[in-house]
Every structure is written in structure tokens, then in C-alpha cells.
């Protein structure tokens, strides 16, 4: 019986039929998806922090409304994804508890500091750019609620990348100091962005199963290569230099070659030793704790209102 369920489940996936919350699914599919979606949701939420750091210091109103709207979008992305995760049987509080306790991971890119205004440009251009590369294929992921959430997310991401690139463009065409700021931001954000695609394929043990289940549609290295290939021309338009001496076009491969990634740094940041891991977690946890009285008050108010309505109904 179990085997039949598994077979017909896989057949649905092979036929590109979406799986919906109440359909039968293997326990491991559910668990893997829960981990992937919740990590993604946490990343959107923690990802608000590095940029929120600059909202009050945006150089003008146009930049300020754009950054504010972008950060608000990221909150929305987190909420779409938490909702999708909840359809797999975990409550919102349980999901948040995993984030707060440090049990759940989020994208390591958000453990780097935002040191200058130019970082808002580099993040929009590169970090949202890498996220888009990762996310577009997920619009066709096999789990219905996740795919629908990703369609919404992807619709909104394009503005994020364009506003970031516009910041880079303005700085690059500005004074010597401004151009240097842009170059410095590119220098610091380039490698962490390249690392956003995760470990090399031969170091990514669960990939094969995830591909078979269509909760991953392209390999880490393929997506990374695509990101690097498109970024080169974008950096050229800015007149900035990508910080990699080994970056050069390989005619035979039809792709750019690039340096070996510093996986020691990557693993250190994942292990919690990046420049801002502690700061980020602390901000998230204290926001949750300081908001507790508000959440409680809202529940108390709702209960009181409900009681009033009940009394009215009885009186009538």
C-alpha cells in the first residue's frame, strides 16, 4: 500500500501535477519542504534588518520611499512563506520558536554588516539578483502553496533589483568618492552573493532527491554560473570591477571562469561566526519579546469584543 502511494505521488510530480496540503505525501517530502520554506521565510524576515539600518539615513525622499517599500515587501514575502509552511503542519509560533532558538537557519548573506549607503545599492543589485535567480524556478515547484507564494514573491522582486542597480549607477556616475563607495560595496558583497547559491553540487547531498521531487529545479552550481555570467556585463555598465582576478570568459565552456570560493568563510558564517550573526538574532528575538504585550492586548481586546457581541445576541 505504502509503495503504491509513493509511486502515484511520484507520478503526479513527474506529470507536473501540483501537490496540495491535504494530498498524501511522503513524510520526508513534508519535512524537507518545511525546512526549505521556513528557512526561506526566516531569510526574508532577517533580511529586513541590514537594509532597515539605512532607511532613516537615505540620501533623499525618492530613495527613502523606495527602500521602505522594498523592506515592507520583504516582510510580505516572509508572511506568504510562513503561511505556506503552516499548511505542512507546523504552527507560526513553532516556526518562530525555531528561528529564535537558533535551530532554524536563514540565508548567511544577512550576517554581513551594511557599512555605507552604497550597500543598499549592492544588496538590491546582487543579493536580490541572486535571490531572483534562485526563486524564479521555484514558481514551478511541486508543492502548490509554495509555488503560489513564489509567484507573488517573484513579481515583487524585480523592482528590488532595479532600485538597487539604480543606486549603484548614480554613485558610479557621481564624484570620485561616490564611485569608490560603490566599488567598495561591490567588493564586500560580491563573494557573499556568489555563496548564496549554497555548496558546490558534489557537496550537496540532498540535491538529487529534491530534484526528483521538483522542490529544486536547477543545481546550485548551474544557478551560480548563470548569476556570474549575467553580472559581468552589469558591472561593466557601472564601470566597476568585480573583485576576482580569475574572472574570464571561457570560449569552450561558453561561461565565465571564476576563482574557487572560500568555503571556510561560508561554513564559519553558517556555524554562527559571521560578523553579525549574534546581532541579527538578538534584534529578532527582542522584537518578538518586546511585542508580546501588544499581541496579548490584541487577544484580550478581541475576546472582550466577542463577549460583548455574545451578550447582545442573548439580550436580543
Amino acid at each position, binding site marked *: 500500500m505504502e509503495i503504491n502511494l509513493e509511486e502515484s505521488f511520484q507520478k503526479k510530480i513527474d506529470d507536473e501535477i501540483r501537490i496540495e496540503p491535504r494530498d498524501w505525501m511522503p513524510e520526508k517530502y513534508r519535512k524537507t519542504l518545511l525546512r526549505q520554506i521556513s528557512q526561506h521565510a526566516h531569510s526574508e524576515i532577517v533580511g529586513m534588518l541590514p537594509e532597515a539600518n539605512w532607511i532613516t539615513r537615505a540620501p533623499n525622499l525618492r530613495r527613502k520611499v523606495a527602500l521602505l517599500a522594498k523592506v515592507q515587501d520583504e516582510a510580505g514575502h516572509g508572511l506568504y512563506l510562513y503561511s505556506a509552511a503552516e499548511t505542512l503542519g507546523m504552527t507560526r509560533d513553532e516556526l518562530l520558536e525555531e528561528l529564535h532558538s537558533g535551530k532554524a537557519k536563514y540565508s548567511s548573506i544577512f550576517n554581513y554588516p551594511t557599512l555605507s549607503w552604497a550597500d543598499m545599492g549592492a544588496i538590491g543589485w546582487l543579493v536580490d539578483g541572486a535571490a531572483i535567480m534562485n526563486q524564479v524556478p521555484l514558481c514551478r515547484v511541486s508543492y502548490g502553496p509554495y509555488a503560489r507564494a513564489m509567484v507573488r514573491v517573484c513579481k515583487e522582486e524585480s523592482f528590488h533589483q532595479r532600485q538597487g542597480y539604480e543606486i549603484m549607477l548614480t554613485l558610479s556616475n557621481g564624484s570620485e568618492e561616490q564611485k569608490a563607495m560603490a566599488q567598495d560595496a561591490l567588493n564586500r558583497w560580491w563573494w557573499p552573493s556568489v555563496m548564496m547559491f549554497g555548496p558546490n553540487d558534489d557537496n550537496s547531498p540532498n540535491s538529487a532527491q529534491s530534484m526528483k521531487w521538483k522542490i529544486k529545479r536547477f543545481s546550485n552550481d548551474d544557478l551560480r554560473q548563470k548569476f556570474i555570467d549575467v553580472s559581468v556585463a552589469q558591472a561593466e555598465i557601472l564601470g566597476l570591477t568585480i573583485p576576482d582576478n580569475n574572472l574570464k570568459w571561457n570560449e569552450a565552456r561558453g561561461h565565465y571562469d571564476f576563482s574557487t570560493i572560500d568555503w571556510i568563510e561560508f561554513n564559519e558564517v553558517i556555524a554562527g561566526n559571521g560578523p553579525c550573526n549574534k546581532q541579527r538574532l538578538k534584534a529578532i528575538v527582542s522584537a518578538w519579546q518586546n511585542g508580546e504585550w501588544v*499581541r496579548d492586548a490584541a487577544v484580550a481586546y478581541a475576546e472582550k469584543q466577542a463577549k460583548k457581541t455574545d451578550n447582545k445576541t442573548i439580550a436580543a
Partner: protein
Amino acid sequence: MNQKEWPLWEVFIRAKQGLNHKHVGSLHAADVTMAIANARDVYTRRLEGISIWVVESKHLHASEPSDQEALFDPAEDKIYRHPTFYNLPIELKHM
């Protein structure tokens, strides 16, 4: 300390006048006022709608996936419910 999670709500949006409300997703809110306010912020940041319905998820009842065949397959062979089932002369107009 309150351990109570805000209830879950399903959100339906009418994209424009004349269309029906369509399910767009869910969210948590303490009461209906907050649910509508949150739905506006989460699901209509870019002119996606002109009207919002929210309903607490616990009030939503769904058919069982395992009943799919029993419920929907019987309609499959009832082609006589479609206009093309009927053999009429080609010269017949306006029908």
C-alpha cells in the same frame, strides 16, 4: 504571559468591480478588523484589489482529496450536458 497564537484567516480579494473574490492566501490576526487591515498590507500593496473578504480558517470546510473520484468523475461521461453532443444540420443558424 499569553501563549495564545492569533487565529488564522483566509483572505479573498476582488481584483476589480465585476469579478468574484478569489482566494489569495492566509494570515494571522487577533480579530476581524486586524485581519482586514493586515490583508490590505500583505496582499494589496500594488492595486491588486478593491475589496477584501476574510474568513477565519476554522470556518472553512473542504472536500476530502480521497473523495475526488466519487465527487467529480461521474461528470466525465455526461457529454450530453454539452451543446456539441447534439447532431443538428449545418444550415441551422443562430443556435
